[in-house]
C-alpha cells in the first residue's frame, strides 16, 4: 500500500514539474510570444478564480455571483502596494495583503448573508460585488475613481504564476480531502441532513467563502500586476458571470473540469478576438446549448487524474471526486 501511494506521489510531482518545465521551455524559446503570454496569464488567473469559486459553488453548494468583487479587492490592494513599493518584496506583500483583504471582506459579507439560501444568496452576493465596485469608483483619492489605476509595476512571470496556480489547486484539493472539505460537500448534498449530523453548517459555509475569497484576491493581485491597468468596471457583473460560466462548463464539483474549461474558453476567446460581437453571441449560444444538452458540465463532478491514466490508459477518470 505504501509503495503505491509513493508511486502516485512521485508521479504527481513529476507531472507538476513537467507542466512547469514545458511551459517554461515554450516561453524561453519564444514559441509563447508576448501575445500568447497574455492568454497564458488569463488562463492562469481564470484557473485560480474558477477553482476557488468551485469550492464555494461546486463543492459547498453556495451559489455566489460576486466573485469579481473579491477579485477587485485583491487587484486594488496589490496595485496600491506595488505602486508605492515597486520591488519583488512589495509585490509579494501586495499579493498577500490583497488576498487577506479579500478574505476579510468575504468573512464580513459571508457571516450575515450565508444564512440565505440558493437564489437569494446569489442575488445578495451580486449586490455585494456591485457595492464594492461603486465604492471603488467613488474613492477618488485612493483609487482614482472610474478612470482606474495606471502604470502598475509588472512582476508577474511564469514562475510566479505557476507557484500561485499550483498553490491554489493544491490548497483546495487538499482541503477537500480533509474532514473540513467533507463537511462542505455534505452541506452541498443536504444542508439539513448535514446539520443533523452535527456539522456546523454556518462555520463551514463561511470557511468556504473565506478561502474562495482569499484565492480570488490572489487572482486579482496577479491580474493587476500583469496587465498594468485596472478600473472598477473590469470587475462588474459580467466578470462574475464569466467565472461562473467556467465553473459550470467544467462541471460543478470538478477541479480538473474548471482547469479544462478555463483553458478551453481562453483559447476560443483568443481565436475570436477580432470579432467581439460574434464572439459574445457564440459564447452565449454555447452556454445555452451546453446547459440544455449537458447541464452537469463537461466533466460533471468527476476528476481527471494521473493514476487513471496508468490504470486504464483512458482520458477520463471516474470515482475520484465523489466517494
Amino acid at each position, binding site marked *: 500500500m505504501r509503495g503505491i501511494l509513493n508511486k502516485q506521489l512521485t508521479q504527481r510531482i513529476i507531472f507538476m514539474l513537467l507542466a512547469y518545465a514545458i511551459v517554461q521551455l515554450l516561453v524561453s524559446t519564444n514559441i509563447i510570444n508576448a501575445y500568447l503570454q497574455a492568454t497564458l496569464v488569463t488562463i492562469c488567473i481564470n484557473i485560480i478564480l474558477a477553482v476557488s469559486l468551485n469550492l464555494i459553488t461546486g463543492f459547498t453548494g453556495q451559489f455566489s455571483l460576486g466573485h469579481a468583487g473579491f477579485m477587485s479587492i485583491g487587484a486594488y490592494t496589490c496595485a496600491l502596494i506595488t505602486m508605492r513599493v515597486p520591488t519583488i518584496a512589495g509585490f509579494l506583500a501586495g499579493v498577500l495583503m490583497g488576498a487577506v483583504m479579500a478574505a476579510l471582506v468575504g468573512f464580513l459579507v459571508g457571516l450575515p448573508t450565508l444564512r*440565505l439560501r440558493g437564489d437569494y444568496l446569489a*442575488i*445578495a452576493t451580486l*449586490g455585494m460585488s456591485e457595492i464594492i465596485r461603486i465604492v471603488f469608483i467613488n474613492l477618488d483619492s485612493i483609487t482614482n475613481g472610474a478612470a482606474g489605476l495606471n502604470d502598475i509595476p509588472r512582476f508577474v512571470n511564469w514562475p510566479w504564476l505557476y507557484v500561485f496556480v499550483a498553490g491554489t489547486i493544491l490548497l483546495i484539493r487538499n482541503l477537500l480531502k480533509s474532514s473540513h472539505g467533507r463537511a462542505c460537500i455534505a452541506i452541498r448534498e443536504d444542508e439539513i441532513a448535514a446539520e443533523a449530523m452535527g456539522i456546523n453548517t454556518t462555520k463551514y459555509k463561511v470557511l468556504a467563502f473565506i478561502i474562495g475569497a482569499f484565492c480570488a484576491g490572489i487572482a486579482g493581485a496577479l491580474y493587476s500586476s500583469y496587465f498594468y491597468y485596472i478600473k472598477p468596471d473590469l470587475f462588474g*457583473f459580467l466578470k462574475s458571470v464569466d467565472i461562473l460560466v467556467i465553473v459550470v462548463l467544467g462541471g460543478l464539483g470538478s477541479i480538473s473540469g474548471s482547469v479544462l474549461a478555463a483553458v478551453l474558453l481562453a483559447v476560443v476567446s483568443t481565436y475570436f478576438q477580432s470579432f467581439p460581437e460574434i464572439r459574445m453571441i457564440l459564447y452565449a449560444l454555447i*452556454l445555452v446549448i451546453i*446547459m*440544455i444538452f449537458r447541464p452537469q458540465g463537461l466533466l460533471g463532478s468527476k476528476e481527471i487524474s494521473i493514476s487513471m491514466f496508468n490504470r486504464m490508459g483512458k482520458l477520463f477518470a471516474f470515482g475520484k471526486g465523489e466517494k
Partner: protein
Amino acid sequence: MEQLIQQIINGISLGSIYALIALGYTMVYGIIKLINFAHCDIYMIGAYIGYVCMSKLGLGFLPSLLASMLFCTVLGITIERIAYRPLRNATRIAALITAIGVSLFLEYTTMFFASANVRTYPSMTGFMAKTYKIGDIVISTQQILIAVITVILMVLLQVIVKKTKIGKAMRAVSMDKDAAELMGINVDTTISFTFALGSALAGAAGILVGIYYNSINPLMGVLPGLKAFVAAVFGGIGIIPGAMLGGYVIGIIEVFVSGYGYSMYRDAVVFAILILILIVRPAGLLGKNTGEKV
C-alpha cells in the same frame, strides 16, 4: 417642500418603469423559480422596437407601444419554448446559467445588428412635449403618460390574474405545479402565458423609458434589470402587488438619493437595501416566512 414633491413625482416615473419590469421577474420566479436574467433584455428590445416604429416607420406613440408589447410577447414565448422548457427539470443553477446565456445572446445580437452606439428617440412634439407647472413643481406629459399607462397595465394584469381562467391557472401552477397538472391544467401553456404577460409589460417599460430618457443602447437593460429584481425581492418575490410596491419604493429612493447630492452612490444604496432586506426579512415586505419541511 416643493423639491420634495418634485422628487416624489420624478420617483414615481422611474418607479413605474421598475415596477413594470419587476412584475415580469416576480411572475416568472413565482411560477418556475427562475431568475430570468433575459427579462431585462426583453425590456431593451422593447425600447428598440419602439425606436424603429417611431423614428423609422413614423408611427405614433400608442401604435408603437402596442407593436413593441406584441413583439416582446412573441419574443418571451419563443425564449421560454426554446431555452427554458428543455430545462424544466434541470438544476436551478443550469436554468440560471441558461438565462444568463440568453441575456448575453440578446444583448450582443442587438449590438451586432444595431451597433453599440446610443440611439436617440425622436423628440416629442405637440402635446407630448408639454410641461405643466404648479408653483415650482414641473410635470411633463411624459411623466403623466408613464404613470397612467403603468396603472392601466397593472389593473389589466390584476384583472387577468384574478378574474380569468388562465389567471387562476397561473396562480394554481405557482402554488403547486404537480397538483395543478393533476387538476387538468396545462402547465406548459400556463408558463408560456406567464412569460407572455411579463414580456409584454417589459416591452411597455422599454418604450416608456425611450420617450422619458430619449437615449437607448444594447446594454441599457442590465442595471435597471438588476434594480427591478431588487424591487421584486423587496416586495416579496412571487407576489404581484409586492413587485408594484417594490418598484415604486426603489424608484423613489433612488431619485431621493441622487436628488440630495449622492447620485454616485444611488446604485450602491439600492443594493444595500437589497442586502438589508434579505437579511432582515428574506421573504420580502409582503411575503410570508415559510419554514422548510424535512
